[in-house]
C-alpha cells in the first residue's frame, strides 16, 4: 500500500450566495495519477484553487501526509511541495524562459540581494534536459512570448517541477498540445509517477483518462459522485457519473450521404496565405477544396500545420493579402476584412474563445448580436425589441443555460460560453461556417449538444469546414477529411476510408508517418 500524500476532507466553498463545492473528499497516494473528472462547472477548478492556496475561505480540511494544513497564499502551497499547472498559463510573456522558470525563488548570492545568473541558468538547463526540452542557453534567454502555446505549456510544467513538487496538479494540460507533445508529456508523467510523485489530473479527453489514470474521481454540481480505480470505471459508467444520465449514443448516421448534394457552397482553388514575416515560406502554399451545401469537411493537422492561418486568411482577418480564387455559393469572393466576409455569408469560430471569441464583460444578448448588429439597428439606432428577439431565439435554439440574457457572458460555464459565440455566428446566417476547435474546453454534455446542432445546421444546407485536434471528433463529424501538413494538403479521405492511423500519418507529412510536424 502506497503512502497517502494528500487528503482533502469534506471541502465546501461558497461564492457569495452560490455554493460551488459541497462536502467533497478526495485523496492522493504516492506514485498515483488521480483523474478529476466532471462537466464544466462541476467544481474541479475551484477545488484545485483551494488546494493551491488561491481560495482561502473554504470549509473542510486539507491533510498533507496526515498533518492538517491551511495555505494562506499560493507561495505557501508551493513550499509545501504542491505545484499547480493552471488552465490559464501563469507565465509572464515579456520575461525570459529562464526567469519564468525560477520566478519566485531565484537563486541568490550575497545574502539574497544579487541574482545568481550562472546558477539560475545551470539549473534551468538541467531541468529542461530532464523534460527533454532541447533548449539552448540562448533559447532560455528569449522571452516566453516568442514561443508557441505548446512550448509555453512545457515551460509551465518546468516551472512547476523547479519547485521539487511532490504533488503536481494539472488542469487540462493538453488542450493546446499536438499529439507528439502530448506523448512527450505522458512520458514525463510516467517518470514522475515512478519517482513517487502524486498527480491530480483534470481532463475532458477520454483517451487521456484511460491512458494515465490509476484512479478516477467524478464531481457533479459541486458534489462528490464517486471514486473508482480506472479498471473498474469503464467509459459508460464514467459518463453516467459525469452527467447523471445515459448519453444518447452518437450516431454516425447523417442527414445527407456524401456526394449526394448538389451545389458547391464553398469553392477554393489554389489558395495561398503568405507568412506574416516577409521572406518566410507561405503559411498556406496551395489549398484547394470544394464543400457542398450540407457537407462537413474536416481538416486534420498538427500544431503549426497552418490550419489557423488558413481560416484567418479565408475570413479576411489578415486583410487582402491572400492569393488564389474563392467562390461562395457560385459568387467570386475575395477575403478583405471580417466585416466583408460576414456580409458574403462566411463566419469563423476561432479556437481561442477567451482571446478572440467572447466579449466577457458584455451581456449574453449583446454578444449574440455583435456580429449582426446592422440587422437589429437599422439606421444605426439599436432596436431593443429586435435585439432581444434575436438573442432569445438563439438562446433557445442552442439551449444556452443562463439566468438572464442580461448577465455578463463571462459568468457562464465554458460550454455555454462556447454556445454564445456559436449563436453570434449563427445570427449572421452564414452559408459557410469555419469552425476551429468548436469543442475545446467544453464539457461532454455541451459537446454532444454542439455535435447535434452541427447536424441540424448542415441538414438546413450550411457548409462547414472543421478543424479539430481531436481525431475521434473529426471522424465522427466529417464527410471528408483533408490532412494538412506545413501549409499543404497531404491527403484526402472519404469517411469510409478514413482511419486515425492514415489521417495521422498524412498529417505528419508522409503516408508512412516517417516525419513529424514540428511545433
Amino acid at each position: 500500500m502506497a503512502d497517502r500524500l494528500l487528503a482533502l476532507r469534506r471541502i465546501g466553498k461558497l461564492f457569495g450566495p452560490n455554493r460551488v463545492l459541497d462536502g467533497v473528499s478526495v485523496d492522493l497516494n504516492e506514485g498515483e495519477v488521480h483523474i478529476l473528472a466532471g462537466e464544466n462547472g462541476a467544481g474541479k477548478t475551484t477545488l484545485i484553487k483551494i488546494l493551491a492556496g488561491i481560495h482561502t475561505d473554504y470549509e473542510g480540511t486539507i491533510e498533507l501526509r496526515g498533518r492538517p494544513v491551511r495555505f494562506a497564499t499560493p507561495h505557501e502551497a508551493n513550499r509545501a511541495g504542491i505545484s499547480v499547472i493552471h488552465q490559464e498559463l501563469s507565465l509572464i510573456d515579456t520575461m525570459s524562459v529562464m526567469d519564468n522558470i525560477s520566478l519566485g525563488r531565484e537563486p541568490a548570492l550575497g545574502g539574497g540581494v544579487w541574482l545568481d545568473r550562472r546558477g539560475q541558468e545551470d539549473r534551468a538547463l538541467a531541468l529542461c534536459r530532464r523534460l527533454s526540452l532541447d533548449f539552448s542557453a540562448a533559447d532560455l534567454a528569449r522571452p516566453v512570448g516568442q514561443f508557441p502555446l505548446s512550448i509555453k505549456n512545457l515551460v509551465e510544467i518546468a516551472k512547476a517541477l523547479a519547485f521539487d513538487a511532490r504533488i503536481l496538479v494539472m488542469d487540462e494540460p493538453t488542450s493546446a498540445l499536438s499529439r507528439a507533445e502530448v506523448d512527450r508529456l505522458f512520458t514525463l508523467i510516467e517518470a514522475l509517477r515512478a519517482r513517487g510523485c502524486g498527480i491530480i489530473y483534470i481532463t475532458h479527453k477520454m483517451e487521456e483518462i484511460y491512458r494515465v489514470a490509476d484512479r478516477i474521481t467524478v464531481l457533479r454540481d459541486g458534489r462528490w459522485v464517486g471514486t473508482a480505480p480506472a479498471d473498474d470505471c469503464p467509459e459508460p459508467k464514467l459518463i453516467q457519473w459525469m452527467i447523471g444520465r445515459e448519453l444518447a449514443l452518437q450516431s454516425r448516421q447523417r442527414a445527407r450521404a456524401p456526394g449526394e448534394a448538389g451545389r458547391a457552397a464553398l469553392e477554393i482553388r489554389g489558395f495561398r496565405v503568405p507568412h506574416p514575416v516577409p521572406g518566410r515560406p507561405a503559411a498556406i502554399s496551395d489549398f484547394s477544396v470544394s464543400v457542398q451545401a450540407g457537407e462537413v469537411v474536416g481538416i486534420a493537422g498538427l500544431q503549426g500545420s497552418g490550419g489557423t492561418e488558413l481560416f484567418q486568411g479565408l475570413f479576411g482577418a489578415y486583410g487582402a493579402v491572400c492569393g488564389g480564387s474563392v467562390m461562395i455559393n457560385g459568387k467570386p469572393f475575395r477575403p478583405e476584412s471580417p466585416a466583408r466576409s460576414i456580409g458574403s455569408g462566411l463566419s469563423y469560430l476561432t479556437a481561442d474563445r477567451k482571446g478572440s471569441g467572447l466579449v466577457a464583460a458584455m451581456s449574453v444578448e449583446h454578444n449574440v448580436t455583435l456580429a449582426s448588429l446592422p440587422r437589429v439597428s437599422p439606421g444605426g439606432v439599436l432596436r431593443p425589441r429586435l435585439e432581444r428577439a434575436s438573442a432569445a431565439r438563439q438562446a433557445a435554439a442552442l439551449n444556452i443555460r443562463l439566468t438572464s440574457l442580461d448577465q455578463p457572458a463571462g459568468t457562464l460555464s465554458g460550454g455555454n460560453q462556447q454556445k454564445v459565440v456559436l449563436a453570434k455566428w449563427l445570427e449572421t446566417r452564414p452559408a459557410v461556417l469555419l469552425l476551429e476547435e468548436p469543442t475545446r474546453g467544453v464539457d461532454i454534455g455541451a459537446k454532444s449538444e454542439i455535435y447535434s446542432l452541427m447536424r441540424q445546421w448542415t441538414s438546413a444546407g450550411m457548409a462547414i469546414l472543421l478543424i479539430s485536434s481531436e481525431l475521434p471528433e473529426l471522424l465522427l463529424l466529417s464527410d471528408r477529411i483533408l490532412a494538412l501538413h506545413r501549409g499543404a494538403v497531404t491527403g484526402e479521405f472519404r469517411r469510409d476510408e478514413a482511419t486515425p492511423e492514415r489521417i495521422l500519418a498524412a498529417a505528419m507529412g508522409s503516408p508512412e508517418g516517417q516525419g513529424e510536424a514540428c511545433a
Partner: protein
Amino acid sequence: MNPPPLRRWLATPAFRALLALAFVVAIGCAFNAGGAFFHWSTHRDMLRQVSVYGILACGMTLVIISGGIDLSVGSIVGLCAVLFARETLHEGQPALAALGLVLAAGAAIGLASGTLVARFRLQPFVATLAMMVFARGLAKWVSGGQKISQAIQHPDGSFSYVDLPAIFQRLDHRILGGNLSVVTLVFLGCVLLSWLVLEKLRYGRYIYATGGNEEAARLSGVPVARTKLLAYGLSGLFGAVGGICQAVQEQQGDPEAGSTYELTAIAIAVIGGNNLMGGRGGIGLTLLGALTIGTLEKILSINAVGESSRLMLTGAIIVAAVLLQRRRAG
C-alpha cells in the same frame, strides 16, 4: 443557486456608486458648516463648479469604455477657451460662428489623438500625452501667451475695452428663478448625448465591444478603428464645450486654463465605478461620480478647510470611495 434580485441589485456598480455618493453626503450632513450644507444654493453652486469637469468626464467615459484614456482634454479646454475668447472678444465674430469654429477645433484635436491610437497604434496614454503637450503649446501660440480678455492692448501700450458679448451672459447665467446654472444644463446635455451614443446607437455597442475584447470585436466585423476615432473625437468635442464654459465663467481666455482637469475627469469616471480596463461602465456612473466629487469639494470649501488638507483629504476619500465600490473577490 441564484441570488435574489435585491442582492443582485446591491452588487451592481450603480448601487455602489450611489453608496459612495451617500457616504459623501453623510459626511456633509455631519460637517454642515452651521447648516450651510442644507441650503440649495450650496448645491446649486456645487453643480455649477463641477460642470466643466463633468463635461470632460463624459468624453473621458466614452474613451475609457473603448479601452483607452484621454489625457489631452485639459489642454483642449485651454486651447478652446482662448480660441473662443479671441473670436468673440477680439475678432468680434458672431457667437454662432465662434461656437462652430471652437467645437470643430476641439473635435479635430480629438480626432488627431484617435488617428494616432487607431491607425498608428500608439498607446492611448502616449498619444494623448503628446497631444496634451501639443495642444497646450497651440493655446499659447493662439493667445500669444497672454490671457485674452475685454482689455485689448494696442501697439502704443494703451488699453481699450470691449463690451462682453451677450453669449457670455447667456451661458453664465441662472434660470428657474436663479436655481440652476446654464452650464449645469450644458453638462446634463452632454450626459444625455453620451447616454444616447452609448445606449441607443450601434456605435455605442461598438465602443463597449472594442474595449471589452478588441480582437473578438474586429473578427465580428466591428469597425474598430472608426469606433476609436469616434470616441476620441467626441472626447475632443466635449473638451471644446468645457473650454467654452470655462471662458464664459472667467470672462476671458486663459491659455493655462484647464491644467490638470483631465485628472479630475478621470477621477470622476473612476469614482463612479467605470473600469479603466475598458468594456464596462456607463455614463450614469460618471454622473454619480461627478456629484460625489462635486459634493466632496463643496463640503471641504464650506468648512473652510485649507488647500493643503483639502487635497490630501480628496485623495484619501477617492481611495475610500473606490475601495467601497470594489467587487468582492470571486
